[in-house]
């Protein structure tokens, strides 16, 4: 553990902010041209359809306008973003010892091998744009579960399955950054769980950005077949740089009939990151998607995981916490489309803002005429730690059947002074008392996370709370 420094205004992130000296084997030029896309594609040994896909996406990227409805992203200079950075590791590694020492050190500080030892089935950790470390435990593979990097899966047994699903939920036409993603995506995971299989231990993936000005465009594709169960964890932590950084990843989740997929994320991007991530799930009859989401880092975030409930009785639960500190504008939320009878959704979110941070939560519930008997409940709570910070909730409801039950509640509050006094009377410092109260506020998320992630999340809250006093 590195020594902790305490800043008064900015938050002490020394504990998580470390980086390696850059040692890129290869880096493409900054601006985005067809030539560059072809270069990337060649380098990745893409199948031809993927190259064509990338080129069409590039065209769309140039045509689609920047979004103008959310937080300011004019700080993003697309021409200067190096879109593809590869670390000093060309091959995939299935043994931890084979990973280069320098990279291993970075991951060790992020606690990856440890968490793997502790209970995780497989690790697909992305270092810059490349998957450098990947392993799946025998027992999981033995169940017929495929957990691999998407790029190599494009050439294997599951190539057709990927082709059928890749960017079908999030088409490049969706928005400018989805188009960008389609053109330059790189790295990411592919998971397939066969019918009826329950994966007992969570699969995890740890993404981080490590090069100044580098974008990260990992693609996660998960298919959980009929009656199967999976918990997938995505964790992010990135070192801090002054050059604008962009993350435009994409997550596509296909949840089969009666299948259950839990997708947990802790995002801790450094405070200069533009996090424009797109996540979407499609749920068939009787299936369920459970999103657990903690957003802490980044300068600006646009993040609204969407769930499309396509089959009768399909369900969605969304549990989230967003913490916006100084200089952060985190625009998060979720969208749920009820497109079949008796579908249910339950949204429970907390947002915290501090030292001028802005946290906006947008929820959108759409109930189509097909969704008779649908039930939706949305509950959003915000905690503002001072007068300079802002917290808004923007609910949108589009209900097209009279036979649906839709509820929404929102609350905005402050840390109760009596609670701080009460905790201090037991010997807790003011800082610790407040951190504990905030942790308690975010407990909707931490109680859904595996222990080591819950601990990390509470550590993040403590770090964010440092210097909040005065």
């Amino acid at each position: 553990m590195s020594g902790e420094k305490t800043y008064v205004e900015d938050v002490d992130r020394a504990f998580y902010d470390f980086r390696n000296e850059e040692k890129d084997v290869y880096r493409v030029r900054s601006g985005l041209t067809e030539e560059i896309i072809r270069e990337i594609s060649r380098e990745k040994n893409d199948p031809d359809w993927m190259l064509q896909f990338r080129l069409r996406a590039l065209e769309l990227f140039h045509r689609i306008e920047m979004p103008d409805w959310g937080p300011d992203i004019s700080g993003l200079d697309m021409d200067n973003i190096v879109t593809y950075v590869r670390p000093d590791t060309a091959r995939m590694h299935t043994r931890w010892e084979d990973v280069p020492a320098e990279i291993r050190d970075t991951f060790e500080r992020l606690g990856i091998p440890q968490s793997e030892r502790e209970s995780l089935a497989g690790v697909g950790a992305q270092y810059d744009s490349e998957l450098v470390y990947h392993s799946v435990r025998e027992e999981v593979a033995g169940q017929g579960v495929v957990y691999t990097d998407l790029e190599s899966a494009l050439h294997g047994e599951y190539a057709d399955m990927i082709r059928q699903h890749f960017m079908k939920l999030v088409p490049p036409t969706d928005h400018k950054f989805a188009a960008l993603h389609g053109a330059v995506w790189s790295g990411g995971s592919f998971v397939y769980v066969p019918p009826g299989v329950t994966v007992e231990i969570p699969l995890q993936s740890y993404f981080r950005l490590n090069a100044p000005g580098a974008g990260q465009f990992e693609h996660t594709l998960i298919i959980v077949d009929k009656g199967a169960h999976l918990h997938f964890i995505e964790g992010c932590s990135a070192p801090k740089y002054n050059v604008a950084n962009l993350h435009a990843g994409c997550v596509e989740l296909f949840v089969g009939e009666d299948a259950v997929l839990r997708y947990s994320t802790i995002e801790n991007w450094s405070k200069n990151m533009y996090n424009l991530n797109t996540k979407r799930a499609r749920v068939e009859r009787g299936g369920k998607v459970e999103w657990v989401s903690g957003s802490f880092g980044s300068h600006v975030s646009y993040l609204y995981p969407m769930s499309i409930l396509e089959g009768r009785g399909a369900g969605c639960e969304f549990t989230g916490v967003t913490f916006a500190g100084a200089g952060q504008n985190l625009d998060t939320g979720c969208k749920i489309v009820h497109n079949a009878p008796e579908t249910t959704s339950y949204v429970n979110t907390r947002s915290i803002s501090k030292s001028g941070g802005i946290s906006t939560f947008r929820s959108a519930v759409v109930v189509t005429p097909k969704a008779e008997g649908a039930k939706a409940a949305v509950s959003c709570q915000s905690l503002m730690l001072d007068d300079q910070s802002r917290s808004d909730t923007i609910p949108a409801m589009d209900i097209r059947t009279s036979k649906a039950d839709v509820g929404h509640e929102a609350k905005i509050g402050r840390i109760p002074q009596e609670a701080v006094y009460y905790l201090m009377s037991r010997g807790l410092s003011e800082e610790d008392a407040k951190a504990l109260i905030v942790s308690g506020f975010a407990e909707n998320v931490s109680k859904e996370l595996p222990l080591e992630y819950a601990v990390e999340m509470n550590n993040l809250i403590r770090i964010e709370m440092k210097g909040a006093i005065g």
Partner: protein
Amino acid sequence: MAEQLLKVEGLTAGAAGKEILHGIDLEIGRGETHVLMGPNGAGKSTLAGVLMGDPELEITGGTAVFDGEDLLPLAVDARAKKGMFLSFQNPIEVPGISLENFLRTAIEQRTGKRTRVWAFRKEVKALLEHLQMDPGFAERDLNVGFSGGEKKKAEMLQMLLLKPSLAILDETDSGLDVDAVRTVSKGVEEFQKDRSASLLIITHNAAILSALHVDAVHILVDGKIVETGGPELIGRIGREGFAGFEERAEDAG
């Protein structure tokens, strides 16, 4: 006379611009048990709050020395670390924090050491049993949805765990059923015996006191201590109420 632990002199304090305590003198020796009685609204909780450092209260005059140190400038947590404890009349509910997690954080702050998880769990479990509380309370959110009596027992649990040198019990017995009063009283008795710690017990009932050794009783009326005496005062108030003392407060005021 025991070694002095707390000495309050001429203390005046109030809230929202209004004076509530009009000059309090109070001395508590190490290992002594004092009882503070008085009618509703007399200022008993205010006095307890001033000693603990309630940020709502304003101190306008006087001094307080606790364990050889000027108490009033100390922050609330510093007072706690020095051995002050207040069992609140209305303990606050703190959602999202389990009782156990909170207790562990508190004890680590108090001792400056990390606790051993299993030893600590055992201790908490034993205390819960002792207070006739369900072991499941350890996992429940701090005070959230606890009944009135359960909250008071949870306060006692904290006292027994944190082992303060001065525990102020602000009506810890009110809202407790007969059996619970006996349970709590037993806990207090043990605390009194084992720790040779001091107590300031604020109460409206003699029941909790019956099994305890009491060194002194103070009667607080209208923000003033109008009489200090031995345990015999408890019986007298039981029979006659505060009427006689109230007249005295008016005379003095």
